[in-house]
């Protein structure tokens, strides 16, 4: 599973790069970066960093009595990486990375709906001192932890700040699966709150 995930991520990265050369806009012009909180507040807390690359955009202008109403629908490639920990019980430390697509609707008043589907994801837990027991043999495990395939979905809201360096905020409810986990699958729920920013030339 680990090997397949790495191959997928590589192919995806190549595809991602190829898309950026697709039309006139530069990579940086089509890309927003993001940083924010990732966790469930009560037990597990952490940070995530990421990038969103604008793949497709459809702008619809409706003529209304009060003037034209512009609604934007976007499809963006999404990539993120983050680290979450439980500060009290020292058992829930993990690095996660997700890759997928975001569908986003922006209203005329700049309010946004986000739906994020990340079929590619990886979670690596980091455990404290760990001892492996085989028969009567007890040995210390180097770099203890486990790897999981971790696809995720998220739904949320946000607000856009066009033409600003800090180009908006978002608040998502995320569900990530860890597969295989114990004798099955573990769903984990978290909140993502963060800000997007860009490096577009002014």
């Amino acid at each position, binding site marked *: 599973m680990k090997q397949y995930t790495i191959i997928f991520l590589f192919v995806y990265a190549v595809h991602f790069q190829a898309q950026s050369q697709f039309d006139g806009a530069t990579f940086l012009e089509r890309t927003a970066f993001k940083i924010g909180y990732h966790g*469930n507040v*009560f*037990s*597990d807390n952490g940070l995530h960093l990421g990038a969103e690359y604008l793949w497709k955009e459809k702008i619809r202008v409706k003529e209304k009595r009060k003037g034209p109403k512009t609604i934007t629908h976007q499809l963006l490639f999404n990539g993120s990486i983050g680290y979450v920990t*439980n*500060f*009290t*019980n*020292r*058992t*829930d430390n993990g690095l996660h990375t997700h890759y997928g697509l975001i569908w986003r609707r922006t209203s005329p008043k700049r309010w946004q709906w986000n739906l994020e589907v990340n079929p590619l994801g990886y979670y690596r*837990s980091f*455990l*404290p*001192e*760990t*001892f*492996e*027991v085989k028969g*009567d043999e*007890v040995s210390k*495990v180097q770099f*203890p932890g*486990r790897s999981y395939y971790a696809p995720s979905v998220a739904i949320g809201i946000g607000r856009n700040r066009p033409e600003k360096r800090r180009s908006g905020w978002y608040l998502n409810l995320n569900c990530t699966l860890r597969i*295989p*986990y*114990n*004798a*099955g699958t*573990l*769903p*984990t*729920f978290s909140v993502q709150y963060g800000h997007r920013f860009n490096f577009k030339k002014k």
Partner: protein
Amino acid sequence: MQKIIQNNIKGIAIALMVLGIVSCSKDDVNLNELDETIFVRHKKADMPAYIHGNAAEKVFLIILHGGPGGNGLWYRVNSIRTEIERNNAVVYFDQRGHNNAQGNYSEKEVSIDIMAEDVVALAKVIKAKYGEGSKLFLMGHSWGGTLGPATLLKNQDLFSGYINVAGAHDPKGLYAAYRTNLPRVANEQIALGNTVAYWKNILDVVQNSDATNSLTAFSKLNIASHQGEQKLEADKVINASKADYGDDQPSNNLSKIRWNSAQIQDMLVVEQGLFQKVTFTDSLAEITIPSLVLWGKYDLVVPTVFAQEAFDNLGANEKELFIFEKSAHSPMLNEPDLFSAKVIAFINRHK
């Protein structure tokens, strides 16, 4: 400044390395006040053991939580945290598939047999980490009292004593015991005039219960037993449950606890028929290490009749039975001071 750093770079590097090694050395661990979390990897599972308390004498009490579906740190409460941890170290263990335990295994690799091997593995890890001379005591509460005998039957030489707290050594026999015990308690409470309508309803529930021990029938009476204990508490027949975690309130991921609980219950209770097939009553005679049996007089969940049965069947020459007069299924919550006094006295006698 840059020049000074360049001239002394080797010295600084060596100093940093030495500091690093010293800061990681084992001497840093304060055995009088242990506060460690380690994991045990065994048969494709990684299971956390939270170790707290006074390990100066290398005496460790391993607590096997209830459930299936409970978790280790729920027991770091009241006098276990304040008194027992002052006397000796306490190891709070998340069993396979529970709470923060993780891994990658099939459903076939979840069984009482393998979970008992996990506990043996934990004991070996503690001896390897803290010294072969470490003295280990095993305490099983409720479902932990099913896993306790299963563990000791695998290897009791690792342990200096066994403490059975309302342990379900005969899960298969619980249903029949409910059908006898619930009416007995109900009639007693009706005679006392306590919550009469509720206990009359319990009499009806038992009257209408199936004679066959199916999962559905068992669940109904098990829930009634839990609710019955709440009524006894409301009527002050038993002491109010107290759960004081002090500054150490466990901050676990609740959705993960619930999810894992549901999964493990499904495997052990539904698929493997824990409450229809499993019993260790006849094997208790093979347990010969010193044993302490602790039970609440008003335990409806694992009725008090099992206390005498455990005491009578345990094969130890040195064994003791104590009944808490104002407790139900969890005397560590109803009579915490007396509970810790009994545990500490037993450990100190046999360490």
